[in-house]
């Protein structure tokens, strides 16, 4: 009876409208890099205090689930995850968009998000108590092995050079240690800078590592942002449905993985999507097409991250322990509303909870039409915009988006800094994805490891703690399978071919054969690896000053990084291994001009104010990216577009989202 009453309550017109409005607003906010799902929920929380608890929760749930989906837009179209949960969506989503299948990728993302969201929300409805118990059974060591499982993805994300991928992952892990350590309390690698005291933020680093290289390479090349080849944008719903249906095992598996990882308070959407992606790749017959625009990658990531919404609410509501950062905000809102979460909630305030769960289900279903329409709109605007406008527009989004995270310049500087390092590394064959993987999984791995170490030594059962707990064993088995299965199948394949009389060497990819023949030393890559080795050596030396628990991880990772860097130096000098593209030869000047203009833009942001600096920056970047003859008419168009876009976004961020944008001292000084 309670369930039926709650369903009817959820279907009340106000609740339906709130669900619809929440999904729309969430999708838009989630699509903007820098504005995460957590922020979308946090911005909305104050407005919900004037509402009844159930509709307030419905609205918050709707905006949350919409934002997680919206993150796919910028992941697919700009190679920049709109929310951290969409990291794995970039791996195949952006290559799809590059070849003109952006509309298909977005429609697939929408379908996958709806399915994942439904699985998560239904689990919340049906299996909340047992899943909450599972969350509690997950201890530090399980989190450690989960992080290791996530790190096995490095091999897949290394773009053909696992050693360089390993260097990248170690660099990411080192970056995750910057700031004050939870265990040990040491202040690590801040170099005395207060900007770095709070650590390297995942969101600004994501924007920088993924988006800045895209921008720089965009001005360096003559190609358009996305290759359309005369294709027109459509929904491509039928095609997407066919692909999703054919991939139903992946869809189901990823949704379940998303739900389960969402239940774990220490993990979250990004880790869920990464693990689901890794599993999809391992189980796939065409493993090598992952990372090159395989629709299964998008399906895995997007179904998993939306499943974490429902999954994350399980510990939040059952235990009063937030499953994800966004849930923490919702939990605060609930406490203020006087709804007491925790063990008694489902009995004492069941009607509120069940109305909310049905509201979440409805919102998830509404995401289908909303997502399709908004998605087509986003895709069309990206392909309609010429490159000379797209470059400054994306650059502006990265600046204002990273500023909005905490309302200060620190994150903008971190974004731009990590972006430049990421670009340089990617030009020499160190892809950004492993760095991000290390940055995200670092805290989970380190804290899990050291906590398990402390508990294991205290109870005198260190070996049992690390290797003989049932859930750990299961995760370890999956991790081992992920790492070894590809090698094993490849070897069998080779044996089969060798048995057939074919030369084993013929089965090796053509590119590596060519490299073995040519053997040209890759000096650029060697120099970058040597620089990174120096960083690792410095980090190792610096770790001497840390407390015992604060130094375990820096030492281990620093040593691994030093070794891997050394390996890369040797291989690059010998000319074995995959050759990196190096700096763009023809258009280096144009790239450097863009970097300089953007650096100047960021440097004057505080003094000149967001409006003035960004309008000037917009025009400067448009000129960097423009390859046609500059006429007065074009210049006017650049200026006009810059002013309109900057003003519109300043309005959105400043007025509607309550971000304090820098007003600047020049403008007021000039006016007075």
């Amino acid at each position, binding site marked *: 009876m309670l369930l039926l009453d709650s369903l009817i309550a959820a279907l009340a017109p106000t609740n339906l409208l709130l669900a619809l*409005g929440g999904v*729309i*607003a969430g999708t*838009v906010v989630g699509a903007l890099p820098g504005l995460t799902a957590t922020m979308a929920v*946090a911005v*909305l929380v*104050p*407005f919900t*205090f*004037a509402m009844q608890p159930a509709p307030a929760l419905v609205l918050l749930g709707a905006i949350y689930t919409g934002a997680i989906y919206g993150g796919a837009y910028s992941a697919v179209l700009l190679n920049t995850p709109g929310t951290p949960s969409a990291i794995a969506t970039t791996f195949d989503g952006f290559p799809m968009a590059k070849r003109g299948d952006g509309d298909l990728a977005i429609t697939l993302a929408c379908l996958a998000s709806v399915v994942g969201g439904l699985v998560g929300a239904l689990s919340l409805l049906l299996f909340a108590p047992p899943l909450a118990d599972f*969350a*509690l059974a997950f201890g*530090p060591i399980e989190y450690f092995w989960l992080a290791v499982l996530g790190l096995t993805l490095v091999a897949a994300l290394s773009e053909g050079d696992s050693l360089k991928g390993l260097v990248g992952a170690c660099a990411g892990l080192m970056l995750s240690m910057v700031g004050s350590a*939870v*265990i040990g*309390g040491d*202040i690590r690698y801040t170099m005395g800078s*207060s900007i770095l*005291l*709070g*650590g390297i933020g995942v969101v600004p680093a994501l924007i920088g590592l993924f988006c800045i290289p895209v921008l720089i390479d965009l001005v360096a090349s003559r190609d358009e942002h996305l290759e359309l080849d005369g294709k027109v944008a459509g929904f491509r719903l039928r095609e997407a449905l066919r692909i999703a249906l054919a991939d139903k095992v992946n869809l189901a598996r990823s949704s379940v993985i998303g739900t389960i990882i969402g239940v774990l308070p*220490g993990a979250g959407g990004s880790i869920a999507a990464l693990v689901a992606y890794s599993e999809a790749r391992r189980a796939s017959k065409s493993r090598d097409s992952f990372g090159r625009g395989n629709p299964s990658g998008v399906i895995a990531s997007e179904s998993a991250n939306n499943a974490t919404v429902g999954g994350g609410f399980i*510990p939040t509501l059952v*235990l*009063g*322990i*937030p499953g994800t*950062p966004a849930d*923490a905000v919702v939990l*605060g809102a609930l*406490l*203020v509303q006087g709804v*007491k*979460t925790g*063990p*008694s909630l489902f009995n004492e305030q069941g009607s509120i909870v069940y109305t909310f769960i049905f509201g979440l289900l409805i919102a998830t279903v509404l995401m289908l039409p909303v997502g399709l329409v908004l998605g087509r709109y986003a895709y*069309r*605007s990206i392909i*309609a*915009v*010429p490159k000379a*406008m797209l470059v400054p527009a994306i650059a502006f989004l990265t600046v204002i988006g990273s500023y909005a995270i*905490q309302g*200060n310049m620190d994150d903008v500087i971190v974004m731009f800094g990590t972006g430049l390092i990421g670009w340089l590394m990617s030009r020499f064959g160190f892809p950004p994805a492993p760095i991000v993987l290390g940055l995200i999984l670092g*805290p989970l791995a380190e*804290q899990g490891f050291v*906590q398990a170490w*402390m*508990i294991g*030594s*205290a109870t005198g059962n260190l070996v049992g703690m690390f290797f003989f707990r049932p859930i750990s064993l299961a995760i370890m088995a999956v991790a081992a399978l992920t790492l070894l299965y590809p090698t094993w199948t490849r070897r069998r394949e080779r044996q089969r071919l060798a048995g057939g009389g074919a030369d084993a060497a013929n089965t090796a990819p053509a590119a590596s054969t060519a490299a073995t023949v040519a053997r040209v030393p890759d000096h650029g890559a060697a120099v970058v690896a040597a620089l990174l080795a120096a960083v690792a050596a410095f980090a190792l030396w610096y770790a001497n000053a840390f407390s015992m628990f604060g130094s375990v991880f820096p030492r281990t990772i620093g040593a691994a990084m030093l070794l891997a860097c050394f390996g890369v130096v040797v291989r690059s000098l010998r000319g074995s291994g995959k050759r990196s593209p190096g700096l763009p030869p023809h258009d280096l000047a144009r790239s450097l001009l863009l970097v300089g203009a953007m650096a100047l833009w960021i440097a004057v942001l505080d003094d000149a104010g967001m409006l003035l600096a960004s309008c000037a920056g917009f025009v400067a970047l448009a000129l960097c990216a423009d390859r046609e003859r500059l006429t007065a*008419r074009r210049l006017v*168009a650049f200026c006009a*577009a810059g002013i*309109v*876009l900057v003003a519109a*976004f300043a309005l*959105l961020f400043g007025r*509607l989202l*309550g971000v304090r944008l820098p007003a600047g001292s020049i403008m007021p000084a000039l006016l007075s």
Partner: protein
Amino acid sequence: MQRFVRHSFRRTLAIIAAGTALASAAPALAQSLTYVIPFPAGGESDVTARIQEPVIRQLSGKDVVVQYKTGAGGATAWASLNKLPADGSTVMGINLPHIILQPIQQDVGYKTDDIVNVFIFQLTPDAIVVPADSPFKSLKDLIAAAKAKPGAITMSGSGTHTGPHLSAATFNSLTGVKTTYVPFNGTAPSVAAMMGKQVDAAMTFTTAAIQQGDKVRMLAVALDKRLASHPDVPTFKELGIDMVSGVYRGVAVPKATPEAKRKELSDLFAKVNQDSGYRKKMTDGGFVITDIGYDKVPAFMAQQKTSFEAAAREVGLIK
């Protein structure tokens, strides 16, 4: 080009339209009080601010904008406090012993005396908490077990060099036993670890224990007298352990804020403390309300500084 301008205009319109939907429910942002929380949403500092928020709005007519500036156990926010607008429009949550201990241990970008506290409104007492089905029925059981096997009893808590860390160390030194403190990234994960029996007990706060209802058992609370809501839970003092500790919370303003504005804000938070709805919500949640206004802050801080520094030195946190 024209086509582009039209498209970008349409996109802009769409974004504005979507945003307006979000803002239509928003009250005017004309006169607002920015309330910066140095910890993630959902924590005790946040919950307190959220419960204060409607009362502040009602008393002052000001809209309250809660912002989060997280990192480094709050140090990121406190290091930035004096750079914020100093016109009485911005307050920041502060926690003791955090703002005393952090600057002593290392350079965290601010000094304790850089922070101008205007009102301390609450104490969250420490408590040792175990799962409901734990073999430790009383604190005596736990102490006996720790005596029998030094170091084998594990106790989770939030962070290193924090209130719980210090309290766990004080507990060890006062009882003469050795327990192993395991730091977690926040109160919620430390409580989850205790409930999942990853550790034997949690050194946490009465608030976190009360939220879990009958799934957990408080063995003792670090207060002068028992909690009104939990008359059956003894204090450490009753058990012969002289421990009255916890986290004090209040608000601070940027240094350049004029004296008059400081007093105004102190009066505002004093009035919030008198609100009956607020008092009920806070005490129900396990918080203890304190009334330490701007004029009483210097003496309070001096006393806290002495006692926390002594405790930290005694247990070896300060060399």
